[in-house]
């Protein structure tokens, strides 16, 4: 007797756990590969999956086995010209693998690395693992988007899925008792009467009375039975209500210098940096708003599309961007409600006396209100006035201000990790 079962629908992705275990074990290798991939990718396919290659020796599961040497006897198939007693010179590699020789590769080459593909999801996980926006501490009730469903007792209305069986049956039972109590009392009395009547000597029995009693009892029983076992209004449902939950709201200001002094390569690096930041925010902080500001001599708030793809350019006045940021902060993002972040990228080239203005705006109007401000300077040259002014800002706000320098593309990802790595709160 055979049973035939269609199992195609269940048990999909059964090996997911094992795959995760595997990825977990080789995290170090994968992270390295992800870091390298970030450097070599073009700006448009930053978030695809990646081929990961792990040296076979790191992934081997060792067992006791025989090594080469000693005397080995083997039987091989497909003899063509040998007769017993022939002697064959030993070649560089032994003929065939066969027998107990283990995995001697017969082509004489070493084994390749263990190569596999990780998905986009897994790639991003590894890319942003251990990163966070620092100092995200302000929480507020935002109104209508963060809820938590909690139980709130029992109600008379609801969907069948939330039916509370115990309470419903208890209500039904109570109703049945209430609706039938007087009838059952009557019934009991009549039954006693009937019993008394029947206990009498047969000759003395009042047949009419007996019949009457039996009829009444019958009638009462029928009426008791007619009370429904379960009625509509017995049904009780578990009541769930949604409670709003306080959530932190954050906004990230992205300030990018697009002045004429930035050549194509530096602009590209700045864009890469912000793209990384943008991916990170979109992935890890669903409810974070991003404000894009680009500036040359004047600053302008733009949308995502324009920020990354517009080609407009001009001279450089960095403070224009800071002023715009200050204005937007005041108008739309009161510091009491928002966790505010700033990220600025520039080549450090600024209009002569503008750098001190930047310093002043930062210290007076921006740094007191933001959670974290990061500045990356993309230049292979020496630092100029702006960097020096910013260094003084860092001295004043060591926990909330960070600055790094990017020289070429391969610095971007490490610097990014540096700026947003998870910090243990002091």
């Amino acid at each position, binding site marked *: 007797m055979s049973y*035939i*079962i269609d199992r*195609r629908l269940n048990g999909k992705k059964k090996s997911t756990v094992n795959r995760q275990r595997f990825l977990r074990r080789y995290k170090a290798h994968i992270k390295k590969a992800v870091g390298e991939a970030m450097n070599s990718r073009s700006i448009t396919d930053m978030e695809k999956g990646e081929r990961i290659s792990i040296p076979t020796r790191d992934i081997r599961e060792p067992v*006791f086995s025989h*090594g080469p040497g000693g005397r080995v006897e*083997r039987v091989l*198939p497909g003899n063509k010209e040998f007769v017993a007693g022939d002697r064959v010179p030993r070649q560089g590699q032994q003929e*065939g693998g066969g027998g107990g020789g283990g995995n001697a590769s017969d082509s004489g080459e070493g084994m390749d690395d263990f190569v596999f593909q990780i998905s986009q999801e897994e790639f991003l996980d590894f890319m942003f693992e251990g990163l966070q926006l620092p100092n995200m501490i302000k929480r507020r009730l935002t109104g209508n988007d963060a809820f938590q469903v909690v139980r709130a007792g029992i109600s008379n209305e609801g969907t069948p899925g939330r039916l509370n069986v115990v309470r419903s049956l208890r209500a039904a039972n109570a109703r049945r008792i209430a609706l039938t109590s007087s009838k059952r009392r009557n019934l009991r009395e009549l039954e006693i009467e009937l019993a008394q009547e029947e206990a009498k000597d047969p000759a003395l029995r009042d047949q009419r009375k007996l019949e009457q009693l039996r009829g009444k009892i019958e009638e009462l029983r029928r009426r008791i039975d007619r009370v429904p076992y379960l009625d509509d209004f017995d049904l009780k449902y578990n009541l769930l209500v949604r409670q709003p939950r306080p959530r932190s709201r954050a906004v990230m200001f992205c300030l990018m210098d697009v002045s004429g002094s930035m050549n194509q390569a530096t602009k590209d690096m700045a864009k890469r940096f912000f793209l990384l930041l943008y991916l990170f925010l979109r992935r890890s902080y669903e409810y974070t708003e991003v404000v894009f500001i680009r500036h040359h001599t004047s600053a302008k708030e733009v949308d995502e599309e324009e920020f990354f793809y517009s080609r407009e350019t001009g001279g450089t006045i960095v403070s224009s961007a800071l002023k715009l940021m200050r204005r937007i902060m005041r108008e739309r993002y009161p510091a009491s409600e928002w966790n505010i972040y700033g990220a600025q990228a520039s080549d450090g080239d600024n209009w002569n006396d503008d750098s001190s203005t930047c310093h002043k705006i930062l210290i007076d109007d921006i740094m007191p209100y933001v959670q974290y401000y990061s500045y990356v300077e993309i230049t292979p040259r020496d630092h100029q006035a702006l960097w020096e002014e910013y260094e003084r800002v860092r001295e004043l706000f060591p926990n909330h201000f960070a600055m790094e320098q990017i020289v070429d593309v391969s610095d971007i990802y490490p610097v990014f990790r540096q700026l947003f790595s998870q910090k243990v709160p002091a």
Partner: protein
Amino acid sequence: MLDTYTTGADASESDSSGPISTTSEWTFELIQKYDRAIAELADEFGLDTYPNQIEVISSEQMMDAYSSVGMPVGYHHWSFGKQFINIENNYQRGLMGLAYEIVINSNPCIAYLMEENTMTMQALVIAHACYGHNSFFKNNYLFRSWTDASSIIDYLIFAKNYIASCEERYGLDEVEAVLDSCHALMNYGVDRYKRPYPISAVEEERRQKEREEYRQRQLNDLWRTIPKSGTGEEESEEQRFPEEPQENILYFIEKNAPLLENWQRELVRIVRKLAQYFYPQRQTQVMNEGWATFWHYTLLSELYRRGRVTDGFMMEFLQSHTNVIYQPPFDSPYYNGINPYTLGFAIFSDLRRICENPTEEDRQWFPDIAGSNWKETLQFAMRDFKDESFILQFLSPKVMRDLKLFSITDDDRESEILVSAIHDEDGYRELRATLAGQYNLGNREPNIQVYSVDTRGDRSLTLHHTQHWRRPLGKDTGEVLKHLHRLWGFDVHLHSLNGDEITASYHCPEIGRDRSDSEEESMLVPKPI
């Protein structure tokens, strides 16, 4: 007799004559019909099987089943994930086709059919797995005495749950470390010469508690540190522990490792029990595959002879069949050892020929079976042998000639390889013995046994490797010792012996380093638990 069957029996069923199907599409109904037709034939041929549970699965599920080494319910471990990725890669790149089937030695016998297969392939798999392998599992002596088909699924579930609960309680890393180490020693978790109790989940759970207490007592006894009065040199010589060398290293660890927690011992036990479950399969590869291949060939050919399948069906079947039993010659780039399907199928087919049409040579070589009833002879050959003895007993000169077998001796003291025997009158016996020896697990795996424990001193564990024809240990030895060291918790030494002479020694932690050095080194050596 066969003819009367086709005309007489089953006349009531209207579809009992003529082809069962004519297209390559399969449906559940058709699978059922084929299964029934094959079952009837199998019954006629006297195959004794467990009930079948045929499961249709997708290719992804097949890769799953594949990567968990055929355990339908596997515990979680990274190595299965690695295996899955490997298989997925190869499959997607078209480097390998998936196995047509996987069959589990359980009762009912579970066989997986892939949904991508054509009807012909499904029928082939049913014949191969559900009647070939199935009857082998049920009747071969190794399977009968080493595994309990009715309880394996329960046991696997028990193991999975137990390991999951350990992970919750002690952390993934801890559990993974123990499992890694156990896997490294899995091939040394079997008593070769003692018949074990079949495993059972209920029993396991019941006895788990009992074992915990017992072990603790036993351990305390072994490691008692109170010195006895008047200990002399000769006494320590007398009280060697273990008294006899132990081949079952995992068992020895489970019972005697001084530092393991109880749950860790349970993990060792689970891996050991699984090793035991798979042990017969490793010992009967040629027979098992040969038997199943012989029967799918015989059963489907018989179906064809009776007109139940079409010519097209037969062409497709024969193509798959010849692929399965293709043996590349030794100098082919595709050569990867002797194909167990080929060898097993050749021997079983030739056995049938010897029974039905014996030649003079057969009468001389197999006086007992030449001309006997082939069904009984094959059943006998299947029941009471394992690969080694099966080849030694039944490999006929004709098969050796057909496969053009020859044996070589590769001695590292000689400059050339010697062709020691070929498929001729002088060589048959030697060839047969050599080939049989090749399937002796004892020859294939290094013979390593627990030799002694320094119970009074540094608690170090010493193992001996007894060399077979001076064959040394492979390059992984040091790595495996690290795993052993992790389980044992104290120093581990392994001596490789040629006769009485130690030719190589391995130590973990490695000797010749300062203790302070080994502190730093401990990043590389797995930490003892």
